[in-house]
């Protein structure tokens, strides 16, 4: 009796038909670099991250490595992983990052911060120059994120790198026009950054493109907190943006950039080696995993470019991306 039932059950096992999402949208491809620099293409997906059974993932998420012209904001634990001689010169830093597999160099002009060294246009240009001459990778330059200062230093930098399609950031809600205009004039790519809000992200993309930056020259940064510091918001915003793009919303169909590296290294878990609970584990191991997990999560949620900080994180995340791409 039991056997016959089992037999019946076996024959009624429904065949597994893999449901495939029929998306209509495609994330735009953005070409970074060129004119003598290596060119890196980001975006282009017609499916959610790595789900290549139902769409194309023509380009892997790209790994950018952050170098700073004033490294003092980074904790010693991170700086020592690069070496003191390296981090005191953005050129050498970029060069080493390139050797370790960086695909893009993110130069953050921290020295220009009005609360810090408050350096000016000349220092910023010189930092950019150093990186440009040290490596042939595409470049991303982010200002101190103080509106007036960003405008002051990023415009001459745009000029300096004319035509090399560097990425300039950040265009934000109340300060996007100048950077956007500089991108248009010198054929660069603008980062449109919004604070964890899908509508604002959409709106800013519209505004930046309205002013004349083609959507093929915009990356959007919907912001993120590191692991433990609100990363769940970023996961959901990225997923929603990517889904909206795949559903055919042209305005959100631009590649997503996130900065899990620098976000991690400003948090306590990655900064403090003593006087923390034993259950946090050893500092080096904990801090590195903190960056890795922040990056892993956001890459799985739709990030097309991630900025990392630690040399080992670059190695592990690149290896992970290659495997996720089925390589």
């Amino acid at each position, binding site marked *: 009796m039991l056997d016959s039932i089992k037999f019946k059950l*076996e024959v009624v*096992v429904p*065949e597994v038909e893999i449901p495939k999402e029929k998306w209509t949208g495609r994330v735009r491809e953005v070409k970074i670099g060129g004119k003598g620099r290596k060119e890196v293409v980001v975006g282009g997906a017609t499916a959610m991250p790595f789900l290549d059974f139902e769409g194309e993932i023509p380009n892997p998420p790209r790994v950018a490595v952050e170098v700073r012209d004033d490294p003092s904001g980074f904790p010693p634990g991170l700086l020592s992983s690069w070496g003191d001689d390296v981090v005191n010169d953005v050129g050498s830093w970029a060069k080493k990052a390139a050797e370790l597999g960086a695909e893009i160099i993110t130069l953050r002009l921290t020295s220009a911060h009005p609360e810090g060294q408050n350096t000016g246009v000349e220092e910023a240009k010189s930092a950019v120059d150093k990186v440009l001459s040290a490596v042939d990778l595409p470049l991303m330059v982010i200002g101190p994120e103080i509106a007036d200062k960003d405008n002051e230093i990023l415009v001459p930098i745009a000029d300096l790198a004319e035509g090399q399609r560097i990425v300039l950031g950040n265009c934000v809600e109340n300060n996007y026009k100048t950077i956007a205009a500089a991108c248009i004039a010198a054929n660069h790519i603008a980062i449109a950054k919004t604070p964890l809000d899908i509508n604002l992200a959409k709106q800013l993309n519209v505004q930046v493109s309205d002013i004349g930056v083609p959507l093929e020259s915009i990356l959007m940064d919907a912001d993120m907190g590191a692991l433990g510091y609100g*990363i769940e918001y970023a996961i959901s915003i990225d997923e929603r943006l990517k889904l909206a793009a795949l559903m055919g919303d042209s305005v959100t169909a631009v590649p997503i950039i996130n900065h899990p590296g620098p976000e991690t290294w400003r948090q306590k878990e990655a900064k403090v080696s003593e006087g923390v609970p034993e*259950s946090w584990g050893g500092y080096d191991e904990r801090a590195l995993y903190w960056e890795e*997990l922040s990056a892993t999560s956001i890459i799985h949620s739709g990030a097309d470019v991630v900025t990392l900080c630690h040399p080992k994180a670059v190695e592990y995340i690149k290896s992970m991306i290659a495997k996720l791409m089925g390589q």
Partner: protein
Amino acid sequence: MALTGIQIYKLLPKTNCKECGYPTCMAFAMKLAAGQEDLSKCPYASDEAKEKLSAAAKPPMRAVTIVTNDHQLTTGAELVMYRHQKKFFNPAPLMVRVKDTASADDLNETVEEVGNYSVDRVGMTFTLDGFAVQNDSGDASTFASCVESVKSKTDMPLTLIATDPNSMSAALEKVGDSRPLIYAATKDNIDQMGQLAKKYSCPMVVKSSDGLDELAELSEKASGAGVEDIILDPGDRDLHNSLVSFTQVRRLALRKFEPFGYPIISFPGEGASSVEEEVNLAAQHIAKYANVIVMDSFSPAIAYNLLTLRLNVYTDPQAPIQLQSGIYQVGSPDEKSPLCITTNYALSYFAISGEVEATGRPSWILVVDTEGLSVLTAWSAGKFDADGIAAHIKQFDAADKVNHNSLILPGGVAILKGETEENLPDWKILVGPREAPGIGGYFRQNAQIWEG
């Protein structure tokens, strides 16, 4: 298709007897429709109602429970692909694998270390969830005694890993009333494993060695044989394939493909070539669709990372993480250190503590209970006001912590200054920057306040 509250109401007795705990049948129907209640609470529900409701209400993914004397570990019952669509419900248990070939000392050490591990975050305590004991020796009695030994040292839930039904049977003899997870029924042993699962009322994993077709077949076989609590192992291990197959299984489950209407188990260590990769795989599985995760590597740093990620991923998007109210420390503050105030919306707190951290100046942060609302939202909702601030200052004895009696209000609610001064006549109320990134500059400009 889920039933609406009205449709359910029509099936209820409409007597408003209140025995379900709700004042009206309508209120109960709405709860049922939202999936927040169970029809069994209605003592007068008709058979028709039960049948229709259970058919409509059968969740796309079964909740499976692993039981020990003191613990009940429930997993599964997920309803969405993406957390923003509703939320992820049951945080995937993280277990650590031990093998019966390990020396008794090593085994003891691991069990003790993992078992005792706990970490605090946002005022909550997190631990790992159990052990997976593996029959590496191939010997039934070795396995049984290993399981018995683990069982004697911990009451955490267990997964028993063996391919030989005899080993499994021997181990199950030793677990008393616990109902560990049986791993795994394969196409070679599903009949015997299924019988064990039924005999001991244990949940059981079905493991495919050949893709999703085989997985569906095994799942149907197991349920056909009367095993209700099933967990799926699609068999894929590497980063790419596990993402793809877990996604497909979850998607099919949500589309009510019954053979896949169960939780998924994963073994990140088996697909990894290094510890780092195992951790990355585990992170992927936390975010993407594993419901039980068995780790091979353990260290406090790994555990802290993965538990934090799980907390984040499983946070209800509608109910953001809240902190306990109280005075928090950044660094080791003393009586001269600044005292900032903010709400218990975790993101607000993190934004501020991160910036304070960056200043290098140890500080106190008074967290006011605003039911998880951010500063401006709480203020406009009347949940962050002078009375509340004063009450928290007193409740947590802020006056004993600092000697300068200065309190820094978030700049966005400068308007509260006057009233707070009235409520706290002994205090100087300072207005801080509007946004957290301004804290560095603010501390520098006002350094004399805290440097005497």
